[in-house]
């Protein structure tokens, strides 16, 4: 990767900013940490909070004694659930996926019953963080344990009649909702049962059950919140992806008018969906600050973050794929069971629904049926995690295409090619009802296969198999697309989502010629400040260095829908383009007036207004100063070049790519080692190739981590066993290889820049590529499936016991029994 920069200008004129490898202007402060992380904020008189959390997954709180904690040095207050009043509000679910969705009430602190291990039962407020933490030990809570719903499939089947444990006994069921899409009913395709029945008699039917394990977003900066209740507006700083949603939800549930609320997400250290949330910790801080009329801060520990921040994925997928004998797919039936945890989070049940539109991926399936049961359990709540629904769908279909390849004996890439949408068939309306605007799967695949050395690796694989090499080679394919750029507001409305999907931008020309750009898309590490500066620099003809991008503060960026779903550039970038164009349109009559020319003779190029047929002109900066002075403006002209624009996309956009992975499997130990990873992603127009490459690399690692390393494991009692980074294995650079990443740029037709989202692409594509490669290496040894993460133990056992399907038999159960490594034995903290 190249990180050197060319000079800003060359003799031949300005270098276009769009398409240029700019190093990120925000990185120095982010990397050194000398910046406004929420936890760095210190206010006069600020108090500190610490949480008392339940060790039990499900229990009645019978008594809480806070006497000793209240008497502890410098403790100002201790509150329990019964102290909260209406002004504490509740945590809301913004996406009830069906009208009759069963939704438990989610108070910031429950008064009488805890529903997952880690739930808050009391909050300590003290003059220092250390004193608050000390007093946590002094709160005495009596619990009566209740039966806990832990195993997802058991919870899905539990009822009062069969005596299964209910996460919320008062609700009478663990099932929150059933959500169904059927192509025959929707008129987008034919009947899937007919297709399957026909294939059973004269074709091929592949049936599999796959486990999407529970994941933890594991962002680098733990969540933190500061609330200042003084002044005209109450201010909350929060380590959040979604300050605008937090503001709305505070207003909606705590009785404070929206106009009195200012929410600031200052620099935020990663989210991966994990900070797309409204949290009990935020709501408690809000309430406590208002109770005590003093600023408060809460910063979670890493242990709390892993235990009580929202988790991701966690599904069982029952999949049935029908095809003709020549490999032409005739139907796909998807039956999901999705674990919500004990509460329905902000987007909660909507995550699997996002996947509903993507199980057909890049293929032309005539019949499709999707049914999802969302289930409450006594575990941490789940919500968006990088890709949110689309990685699950991509995994499901790409694993199934490999299984179909095996069943039909067709080469897996040929099978895909046979079924995918041809380049000349775009725009294409899919069986799930989406209109794909553009795509060129043939070109991306051809390039990827050449870069990868596909044929050579297949030859090596054959040779190793024939030689009985202890290290076997496997090749995995994932051809993917995704719907991103969330989202057309009308589509969100039709899915009962509680908000729109537009984005807002403002451009302010300052008197001295520099530019403030305000975006409603709140960055938390993506590089908005750099990429958005490049767009403005090109379009407005000002130097890159003269553009300042502001975001994340509702008093500055008053409107916004924030950052998730690979939306910032494709939605927020387009809003920015429209705002810049308005600035130019406002400046043009001023230029004409000052240049004493007809407006029809004025043209604008590279930051300069020129009079046709003359050498006369003025720069946009000169117009800005003249407008500021307002001494000589056209009659009736307002003395401002500032402009706002809000953009609501008409469609999602559909980046796609071909990912190829080679894995080496040591058959003696089960060790899995990545040999090569090549991808060619079509992400439309690229603003900054360096940032795109970084996003793809990081996304790949996160998807590979699901395939090989990470898993949130609960024991049978509902305790999070993988509660530290000793047991929740996040890979580092030492564990992976450098990826062969390249991109193609077929411009998207859904925005004028032609951009497509890239933030989630790597994560969505890579997981099935890796698992397909692992299986391809050992399939000849009798292995049909290995549950994720494909640990060396699971791989070795699959090889030596034959099949290891997720859906049944050995290795097909949820891993809830194993112990954590004994390195932090409480009784043995010796270090001599």
């Amino acid at each position, binding site marked *: 990767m190249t990180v050197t920069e060319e000079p800003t200008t060359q003799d031949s004129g300005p270098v276009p900013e769009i398409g240029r490898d700019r190093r990120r202007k925000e990185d120095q402060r982010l990397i050194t940490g000398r910046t406004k992380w929420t936890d760095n904020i210190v206010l006069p008189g600020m108090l500190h909070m610490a949480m008392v959390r339940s060790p039990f997954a499900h229990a009645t709180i019978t008594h809480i004694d806070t006497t000793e904690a209240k008497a502890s040095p410098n403790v100002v207050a201790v509150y329990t659930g019964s102290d909260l009043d209406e002004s504490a509000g509740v945590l809301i679910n913004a996406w009830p996926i069906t009208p009759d969705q069963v939704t438990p009430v989610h108070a910031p602190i429950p008064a009488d019953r805890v529903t997952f291990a880690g739930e808050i039962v009391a909050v300590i407020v003290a003059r220092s963080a*250390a004193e608050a933490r000390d007093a946590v*030990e002094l709160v005495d809570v009596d619990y009566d344990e209740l039966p806990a719903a832990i195993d997802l499939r058991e919870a899905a089947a539990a009822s009062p009649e069969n005596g299964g444990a209910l996460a919320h006994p008062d609700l009478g069921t663990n099932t929150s909702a059933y959500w169904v899409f059927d192509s025959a009913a929707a008129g987008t395709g034919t009947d899937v049962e007919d297709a399957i029945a026909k294939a059973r008699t004269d074709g091929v039917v592949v049936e599999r059950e796959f486990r999407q394990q529970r994941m933890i977003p594991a962002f680098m900066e733990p969540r933190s919140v500061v609330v200042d209740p003084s002044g005209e507006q109450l201010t909350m700083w929060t380590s959040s992806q979604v300050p605008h949603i937090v503001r709305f939800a505070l207003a909606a549930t705590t009785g404070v008018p929206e106009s009195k609320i200012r929410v600031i997400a200052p620099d935020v250290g990663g989210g991966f969906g994990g900070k797309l949330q409204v949290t009990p910790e935020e709501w408690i801080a809000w309430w406590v600050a208002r109770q005590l009329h003093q600023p408060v801060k809460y910063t979670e520990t890493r242990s709390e973050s892993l235990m009580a921040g929202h988790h991701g994925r966690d599904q069982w997928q029952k999949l049935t794929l029908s095809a003709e004998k020549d490999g032409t797919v005739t139907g796909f039936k998807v039956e999901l069971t999705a674990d919500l945890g004990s509460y329905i989070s902000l987007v909660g049940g909507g995550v699997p629904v996002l996947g509903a539109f993507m199980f057909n991926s890049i293929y032309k399936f005539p019949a499709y049926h999707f049914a999802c049961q969302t289930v409450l359990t006594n575990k941490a709540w789940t919500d968006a995690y990088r890709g949110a629904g689309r990685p699950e769908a991509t995994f499901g279909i790409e694993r199934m295409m490999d299984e179909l390849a095996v069943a039909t004996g067709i080469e897996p890439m040929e099978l895909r090619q046979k079924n995918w949408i041809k380049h000349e068939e775009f725009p294409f309306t899919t069986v799930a009802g989406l209109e794909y605007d553009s795509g060129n799967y043939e070109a991306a695949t051809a390039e990827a296969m050449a870069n990868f050395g596909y044929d050579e690796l297949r030859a090596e694989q054959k040779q190793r198999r024939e030689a009985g090499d202890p290290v076997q080679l496997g090749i995995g394919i994932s051809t993917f697309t995704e719907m991103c750029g969330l989202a057309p507001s009308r589509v969100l409305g039709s899915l009962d989502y509680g908000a729109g999907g537009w984005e807002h931008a403002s451009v302010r020309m300052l008197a001295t010629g520099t530019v403030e750009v305000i975006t409603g898309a709140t960055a938390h590490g993506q590089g908005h400040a750099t990429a958005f500066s490049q767009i403005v620099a090109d379009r407005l003809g000002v130097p890159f260095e003269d553009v300042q991008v502001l975001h994340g503060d509702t008093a500055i960026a008053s409107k916004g829908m924030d950052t998730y779903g690979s939306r910032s550039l494709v939605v927020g970038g387009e809003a920015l383009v429209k705002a810049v164009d308005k600035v130019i349109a406002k400046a043009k009559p001023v230029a004409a007036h000052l240049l004493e020319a007809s407006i029809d003779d004025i043209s604008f190029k590279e930051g300069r207004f020129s009079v046709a047929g003359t050498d006369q002109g003025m720069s946009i900066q000169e117009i800005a100063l003249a407008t500021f002075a307002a001494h000589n403006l056209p009659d009736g002209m307002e003395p401002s070049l500032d402009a706002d624009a809000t953009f609501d996309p008409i469609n999602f956009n559909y980046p796609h790519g071909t990912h190829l992975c080679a894995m080496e499997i040591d058959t003696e130990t089960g060790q899995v080692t990545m040999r090569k990873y090549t991808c060619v992603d079509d992400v439309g127009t690229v603003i900054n190739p360096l940032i795109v490459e970084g996003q793809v690399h990081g996304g790949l690692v996160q998807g590979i981590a699901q395939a090989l390393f990470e898993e949130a*494991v609960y024991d049978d009692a509902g305790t999070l066993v993988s509660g530290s980074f000793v047991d929740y294995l996040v890979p580092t650079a030492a564990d992976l290889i450098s990826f062969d990443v390249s991109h193609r740029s077929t411009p998207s037709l859904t925005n004028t820049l032609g951009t497509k989202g890239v933030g989630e692409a790597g994560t969505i594509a890579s997981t099935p590529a890796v698992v397909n490669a692992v299986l391809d290496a050992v399939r000849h040894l009798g292995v049909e499936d290995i549950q994720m993460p494909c640990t060396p*133990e699971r791989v070795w056992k699959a090889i030596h016991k034959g099949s290891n399907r997720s859906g049944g038999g050995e290795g097909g159960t949820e891993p809830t029994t194993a112990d954590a*490594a004994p*390195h932090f*034995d*409480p009784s043995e903290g010796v*270090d001599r």
Partner: protein
Amino acid sequence: MIPAPFEYAAPTSVEEALGLMTEHGDEAKIMAGGQSLLPVLRMRLNAPEWVIDLSRIDTLRGVIDAGDAIEIGAMTTHHDVLHDPMVAEHALLITKAVEHLADAQIRHRGTFGGALAHADPAGDLGAPTLALGAEFVIQGPGGTRTVGAAEFFVDLFETAIGEDELLVAIRVPKHTGWGAHYEKFVRVAHQWPIVAVAATVQMNGDTIAEARIGLTNMGSTPMRASAVEEALRGAGPDEIRAAADLAADGTNPPSDLNGDADYRRHLATVLTRRAVQAAAKG
């Protein structure tokens, strides 16, 4: 991640440290490099009244030549052990084990004696010191005593060091010219070994004259693979596999998220073969 309050002392001599230990008894914890103790304190899994920091006792650092042995001061950092030419010449197995111990940051803070006294069965130093027949020099109020490696490791996180004693040095008999290899099996680089095998061999041409094999994380203490050592005496290259198949004999490995006991027993045999084969090459 805020520990419970504690008092802190940083003695500058072993005698001063022993005095503080006598004074505070089981209310005190000893801190060497702090790489295991500090996480435990921060997670409040332990809350001692006193932390006695040994980092200012200069006499506990460094490696010296003690005739037929080398003596590694207990407070010598992993980094210093890794780059010590005397260790590489006379106890290559230790160099090989330390090379992949944790990460560079931990190797700069963590200490050789601290890790051994912590006695984590998944720690990387128990198996090589056991294989090399190291002796542990322990100092208490009554003076100094020496304990062999086999007696030093008592149980999970438990050693022969008494309540009022300190580990001051590790004496490693010279194995000059022995080949060595540490075969460590992990899923990610920063985790404790799932299983690891420390092997050092003295070659006689193509034949193994003597072999010493230590096993990491195959029981509550580091273990010696005695049956393998026995079978390797005088073994040629083709006999290594059969000998290594005995590696799991008498072991009692744990089960956890990374693998159950049976899987670890299997791994021990494969890793032992590989470790011995690599050690035989030098």
